């Protein structure tokens, strides 16, 4: 991933301590969030690593007294989005639009990146498989709202969109998730 590229300022004691503490306290949460977004450990590791390098680089932009978790999740979300765009360019794959309804079209999965294809083949759990089939933006909003339990306002800040977009994305994502789960359970019963 790309955050490790480019110039960087040399270590200073405050900055070093800031990063050390950030990794100590929020490393696990950040890594798990990255894992839920990407669906695999290798990409989650890269994403987490890039996020903490970004934390080190932009540590002065963190406002003390605000939620560090929201801040680093926003970094992770942006990096993940950048990575998807980069891969979209590389593989010329189609990424569903934010607000377009994601209809599960039978044999063609909604997962559009090679990673998602891999995850879709590897995972056996219906829920994980269904999550992997959601569009990246939908998966993000479900993870943030239902697993991380952020408010709509916080999710809007993390994802850089309006609360209305969060509402509609979450509603559509959950409706699709329920439908996917239902289909997969029916397939398992056959």
């Amino acid at each position: 991933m790309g955050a490790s590229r480019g110039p960087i300022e040399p270590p200073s004691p405050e900055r070093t301590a800031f990063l050390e503490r950030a990794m100590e306290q929020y490393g696990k949460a950040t890594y798990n969030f990255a894992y839920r977004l990407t669906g695999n450990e290798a990409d989650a590791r890269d994403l987490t690593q890039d996020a903490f390098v970004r934390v080190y680089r932009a540590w002065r932009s963190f406002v003390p007294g605000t939620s560090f978790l929201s801040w680093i999740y926003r970094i992770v979300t942006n990096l993940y989005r950048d990575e998807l765009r980069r891969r979209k360019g590389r593989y010329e794959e189609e990424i569903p639009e934010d607000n377009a309804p994601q209809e599960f079209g039978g044999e063609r999965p909604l997962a559009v990146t090679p990673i998602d294809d891999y995850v879709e083949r590897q995972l056996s759990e219906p829920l994980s498989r269904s999550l992997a089939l959601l569009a990246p933006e939908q998966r993000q909003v479900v993870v943030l709202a239902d697993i991380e339990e952020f408010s709509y306002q916080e999710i809007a800040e993390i994802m850089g969109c309006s609360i209305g977009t969060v509402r509609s994305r979450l509603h559509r994502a959950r409706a699709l998730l329920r439908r996917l789960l239902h289909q997969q359970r029916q397939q398992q019963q056959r």
Partner: protein
Amino acid sequence: MTPHLQPQAITDYVHGALPPAQDALAYAHIHVCGSCRAEVELERALTDLLREDAAREEREFPSLIKAAVWQTIRDAKPTPLARLKAFLRPAIAVPVATALLVGALILGPVGHLARGPVPTIDASFYLDEHDAQQAPNPLAERTTPLQPLETGYDQSASDIPDVAAQEAVATSGGIDVVH
């Protein structure tokens, strides 16, 4: 009975995102409406499923990430500002400044000579100019005196200084001024 909850409102209700008044209405409605209650329970079940799955899948923070982050920071190219700061550290800056100072001292006079002679202005220029400007009558050096105009104009009431007329008279040996 209040109207059924819209699907979007059910999602918002489950996530505690409805405004207080609407939330109270939804709460009251769910207690009397079986179908809406079933929808809410279904949504909550999905949330529970997601959380259980996340808890089951939770991973520890790999220690190699930490090492990789520090390695990336160490290997990263410094910013131009950081490079400048590194260059300006005393071990380098002091010898460089000394060399520049010595160079300026040595090359200073040479540079001055290279520019050639500085153009000068003769002192008499200033003296003459000042003399001309400070003279009580700038016209006093005229060799030919002013001729009075025979226009019938009353010069006694004019702005021409009397000194000029007096000096003109004195230098020419006396000219009758027509009044």
